[in-house]
């Protein structure tokens, strides 16, 4: 049974957490994530979940307690944003290396400084190399759907890695959206029970976790994490198919929008993909062959899916909502460009950094990007690789 509701992104994610009914949630409030833990704590107070809610004194402790709980054999979650994710940075690496399937929403917000509470992806990009699977969500519906699928992805025996579910602060977290939620029983059956192979509370089989690992084993353990990331791609697609069967909504590694015959494409994460799709529809009306590629999964990077979706285009603009300060553009630009380089199709790939600190991406900005791409296609030349959208220079 499906149910149409009008709720915010944060409410949708809290609702998903309620239906997943995790054994332990350890979390600390931070704008714009706060609502998620507030709403969830009311579920705890009203006996609507079986969860032990650990009201930790920091995000570092939030991930640490989630690690303790997950290692003990519980299905554990946390939730955060921005500085909170930066503070738990150390523990994200450790959760991954301990191979603990902790699921955590990240309500994307700009990192300090200067301090800012609005959306960009600098928080998520800070942990892109930490060994955590990163799912991105265009809207509240996708955030809800990603949360439920994340449990199955994280706990799959071929994966066993933490999964973060990213969605845009305020834009998605606080805006009212109409979405379909599944009924409790369907979600319960879909996520099933967490059955770890080894766990601290197995009285018959005590286990040591978090051992000191020297040059004789550390490297192999890191390689195993990479293998799990590689395996995750197939698992994400399989779980997506299963989820389609219960929800009617399709989920893969990437969302290719009107790319079949496209000559020009924009690659963009999260809510901005919605704006880009709107512009594409308008330009298509004018006869332009344009499309959008929205990676749903950023880590592991869907290298083959990106190649496959973009192999026929002539020019691509990658829109990054984060800086790297490398002076070589944003983080996603580097990955997409690498993927396309190997095709040897002479696809021109340029980068736009946009929306830092919550600056709106206007439809005219996206139109400008397609104008630039049209000029590149016409002239066969791309002179400037790193560009800024909607910025006063």
């Amino acid at each position: 049974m499906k149910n149409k509701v009008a709720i915010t992104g944060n409410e949708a994610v809290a609702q998903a957490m309620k239906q997943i009914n995790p054994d332990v949630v350890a979390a600390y409030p931070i704008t714009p994530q706060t609502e998620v833990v507030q709403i969830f704590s009311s579920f705890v107070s009203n006996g609507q979940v079986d969860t032990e809610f650990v009201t930790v004194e920091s995000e570092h402790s939030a991930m640490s307690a989630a690690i303790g709980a997950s290692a003990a054999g519980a299905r554990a979650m946390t939730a955060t944003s921005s500085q909170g994710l930066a503070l738990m940075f150390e523990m994200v690496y450790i959760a991954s290396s301990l191979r603990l399937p902790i699921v955590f929403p990240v309500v994307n917000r700009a990192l300090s400084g200067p301090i800012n509470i609005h959306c960009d992806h600098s928080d998520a990009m800070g942990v892109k190399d930490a060994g955590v699977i990163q799912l991105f969500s265009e809207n509240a519906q996708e955030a809800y759907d990603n949360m439920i699928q994340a449990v199955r992805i994280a706990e799959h025996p071929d994966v066993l890695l933490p999964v973060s579910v990213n969605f845009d602060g305020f834009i998605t977290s606080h805006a009212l959206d109409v979405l379909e939620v599944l009924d409790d029983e369907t979600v319960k059956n879909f996520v099933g029970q967490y059955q770890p192979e080894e766990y601290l509370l197995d009285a018959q089989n005590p286990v040591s976790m978090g051992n000191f690992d020297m040059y004789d084993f550390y490297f192999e353990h890191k390689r195993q994490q990479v293998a799990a990331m590689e395996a995750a791609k197939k698992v994400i697609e399989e779980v997506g198919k299963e989820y389609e069967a219960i929800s009617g909504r399709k989920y893969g590694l990437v969302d290719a929008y009107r790319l079949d015959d496209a000559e020009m494409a924009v690659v963009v994460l999260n809510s901005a993909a919605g704006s880009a799709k709107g512009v594409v529809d308008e330009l298509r009306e004018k006869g332009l062959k344009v499309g959008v590629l929205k990676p749903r999964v950023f880590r592991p990077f869907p290298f083959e899916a990106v190649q496959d979706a973009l192999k026929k285009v002539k020019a691509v603009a990658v829109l990054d909502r984060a800086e790297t300060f490398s002076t070589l553009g944003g983080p996603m630009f580097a990955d997409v460009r690498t993927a396309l380089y190997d095709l040897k199709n002479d696809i021109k790939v340029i980068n736009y950094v946009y929306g830092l600190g919550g600056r709106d991406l206007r439809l005219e900005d996206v139109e400008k990007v397609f104008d630039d791409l049209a000029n590149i296609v016409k002239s066969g030349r791309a002179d400037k690789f790193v560009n800024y959208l909607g910025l006063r220079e």
Partner: protein
Amino acid sequence: MATLKELAKVEERFVGGHRLCAGCGHGISVRMVLNAAEDANVVVGCATGCLEVASTIYPYTAWNCSFIHSAFENAGATISGVEAAYKSLKKQGKIDKDFKFVAFGGDGGTYDIGFQSLSGAMERGHNIVYVCLDNEAYMNTGIQRSSATPMGADTTTSPAGKVVPGKQQPRKDLTAIMAAHNIPYAAQTAISNWQDVHRKAKKAFDVEGPAFINILSPCPRGWRYNTPDIVELVKKAVETRFWPMYEVENGKWKLNYKPKKYVPIEEFLKPQGRFRHLFAPGNEHVIKAIQKEVDERWLALLERCGETPELPPK
């Protein structure tokens, strides 16, 4: 209380194969504490530090019970997550066995970098025991001063130099700070008195809610003493009143041992290389300052414990 013979029958949870130094206080303390858990199922949490690196070198482990280390500053938070998992799974009928939870951290991981995490865990009221193995400096990284390092000690970041004679500040009084959390049980003990350690550890495991125990755990490399003399040295720490043995149960302070006569602090300082410079001419004032601080803290402790505030007869 059980006899030593009876205690010896409890299965060891910290076994051979670990690589702690000869004459280190950690192994002795850990075995004594875990012995008091008797036949319970125990999960041990551990902060990064000597104990962790010396006991869990992959693929080996010296732990005969479940053990988790995740990082340096978060043993309190990590073990509280384990305990929350236990409560949740037990309540839901997903597990049926009972467990006890204990975390070990050094003074660096407890007084300093892990202080916030520990304070949070204590305030939240988890049913856990936190044991600080206080060796009074960052020994695992090579003897740097911590907030537990006593005044005058020569460490690699408070070196005794031509102008500055070792650490300038007195120790942080962590046991009192833990007691100020109004937890059911906080205590300070020393391995020179196994009955005291055993009784306190047992009480810590038995009380409902968080318990904290601070154990003075000498480090042969950092303190520079003759390793076989470790227990004698701890005895001197107690007799000089440098390390009083006391407990705070449900807000009630109790002194567990009162030296019969006044033993000057020099008795504790002298056998240790880290204080050797204090006995050079010109540094008498430092020893005097240490003595003054020990005496003042002792008198304050007596008052808190409802004892007559007077120094032992000289």
